[in-house]
């Protein structure tokens, strides 16, 4: 980030080419709800290389980044097995061939690394039972820096600790943001906030860019402040086929198609050509979806609204002066204040 302040609105292509570099470490916040798939497909299209992917609960996002040749290392707590038991996932195949290194944590210890990174600590205590788990015992590329132990100065107990993680780039998709990057998300939060705040650069796609006053009247939904965000992209369907609370459900029709692609020989290569490489952007992706599945199928997943009760942030006085222009504290108008200053103020000569 060079410039401070001002609009950060750009396209997905521009954001990825400006802010994502070969060799970077990359993180997506959530579990799967609101997964920033449009940004992930763009990274694959731009053929980024040598990346480390922090993935708490990986699904096809992780499988695709590996299959697309972008990722060489992963920090992970869970991976859904696309491809089923027999064939196994892409990640499993690459790991067993030695083409991918994975550091396995539990969800909590993974998240604790991000919390440390977000708070600016060098490490974070974790819960002691992990010391009996092989998650604690085995390590990959982190060697003996995956876990450590320390002694509590107050109880004398041994406490396992994890090192802080500060990924280079965090990507997220949210319901709405303003042009400055104040990003609002509601729904399952997972480790999204820690993932964002631990990262050096944050890229946000959103369904809608809204006026700043929408944000200011609902700050409890803001999960990352604009001053931390580098790019804001208005990208409807930016997490498709994953779902977004208030907009649409998980597209099980597309999931079913992907399931077949993972299972068939050469299915994934064909899927990449059809759905990633041959489509320049998310608009083209949605057009293609409609060609293949039909508009009706897309509409089936639209959310039926269920609005949050508005929270009243109102206050009695909008400034130190009431509606009649009288000071709430002093009981005088502006002219009266000036008189009071002359009478009682410690007036000094500044000329």
């Amino acid at each position, binding site marked *: 980030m060079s410039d401070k302040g001002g609009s950060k609105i750009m396209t997905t292509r521009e954001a990825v080419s400006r802010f994502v570099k070969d060799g970077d470490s990359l993180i997506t916040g*959530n*579990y*799967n709800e609101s997964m920033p798939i449009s940004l992930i497909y763009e990274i694959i299209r731009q053929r980024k290389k040598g990346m480390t992917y922090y993935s*708490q*609960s990986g*699904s096809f996002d992780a499988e695709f980044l590996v299959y697309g040749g972008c990722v060489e290392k992963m920090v992970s*707590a*869970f*991976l*859904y*097995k696309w491809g089923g*038991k027999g064939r*196994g*996932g892409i*990640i499993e195949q690459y*790991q*067993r061939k*030695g083409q991918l*290194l*994975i550091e*396995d*944590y*539990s*969800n*909590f210890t993974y*998240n*604790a690394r991000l919390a440390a990174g977000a708070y600016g600590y060098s490490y974070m205590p974790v*819960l*002691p*039972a*992990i*010391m*009996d788990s*092989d*998650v604690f015992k*085995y390590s*990959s590329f982190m060697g003996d820096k995956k876990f450590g132990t320390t002694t509590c100065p107050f109880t004398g*107990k041994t406490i396992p600790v994890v090192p802080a993680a500060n990924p280079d780039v965090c990507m997220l998709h949210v319901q709405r943001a303003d042009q400055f990057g104040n990003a609002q998300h*509601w*729904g*399952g*939060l*997972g*480790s999204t*906030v*820690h993932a964002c705040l631990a990262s050096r650069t944050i890229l946000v796609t959103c369904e809608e860019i809204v006026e700043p006053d929408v944000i200011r009247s609902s700050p409890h939904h803001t999960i990352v402040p604009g001053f931390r965000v580098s790019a804001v992209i208005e990208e409807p369907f930016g997490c498709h086929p994953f*779902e*977004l*609370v208030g907009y649409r459900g*998980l597209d*099980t*029709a597309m999931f*079913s198609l992907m*399931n*077949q692609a993972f299972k068939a020989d050469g299915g994934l290569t064909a899927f990449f050509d059809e759905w990633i490489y041959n489509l320049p952007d998310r608009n083209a992706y949605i057009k293609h979806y409609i060609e293949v*599945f*039909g508009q*009706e*199928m897309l509409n089936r997943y639209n959310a039926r609204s*269920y609005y949050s009760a508005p929270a009243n942030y109102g206050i009695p006085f909008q400034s130190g002066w009431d509606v009649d222009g009288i000071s709430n504290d002093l009981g005088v108008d502006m002219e009266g204040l000036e008189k009071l200053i002359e009478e009682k103020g410690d007036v000094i000569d500044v000329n």
Partner: protein
Amino acid sequence: MLTKKVTRQELLIIAAARQIQNGDVTILGIGLPIIAGAVAKKTHAPEAVLMMESGICDFEPRILPMHVADASATRGYGYAIDLFSVFTTITHAGYLDKAFLGVGQIDRFGNINTSYLGTPPDAQRITAAGGAPEFYAYAKQSILTMKGGEFVEKLPYLTSPGFLGGGDEREASGRYTPGSGPAVLLTPKGIFKFDKETKEMYLDTLFPGSTVERVKADIPWDLKVADQLGVFPVPTDEEIIALREFSPRSSFSSPVAVQLVFENFKRRIAAQKAAGRAN
């Protein structure tokens, strides 16, 4: 009362649902646990506080979620927090009554592997740790479910510690919530419990169609069997209806369900295209 036909998958779900008591603060994972939670909440445990580890607390299961942050679970829920808070302020602080955990491999003392079927990195993967190690350590009680997993003499990889070497080893380590650990293991063949002293697993109840010999055939050690076998829970119509209203696909085994769903989408797309041409 039961008048409906019931599948093996449904029976297992109902057995799991009966493990939840009214008012239990319960963490649910994807698959069988969430369906069990939905049935319990609709029938005998309407005040159970159901949670998923993404920070969705006190939710109403409506539709089978595909993952633990699924939007379908956030249409009306009581407490929105994040994962870190679920593990610290609720679980480690001692407020989690029950955790449901899926099992890949299990040994006689309830230690669980969900990571690798061998030594990493060369071994076949399962799904990895997820939230299991900490939920298993700090929930007051854990309910284990195993479909398609296996019993082993020695785990190639210990993801989530159970009773460790048995006896009071877990308790004596001081690393766990006192009194915590597996209460029960449910498999398609029956219900297993753990001896109060030795902490060794034993067969408690057989499901219909199963025998002690068939259960023992899956188990590489000499499995102990309760002196008097328990009676499996016969589902009621109310439970079966609650289950089918929540997730119609869950009456089937997973491969059959996946195929049925795929065929449904093929039919839908074909019908839509035919309608398009007719216009």
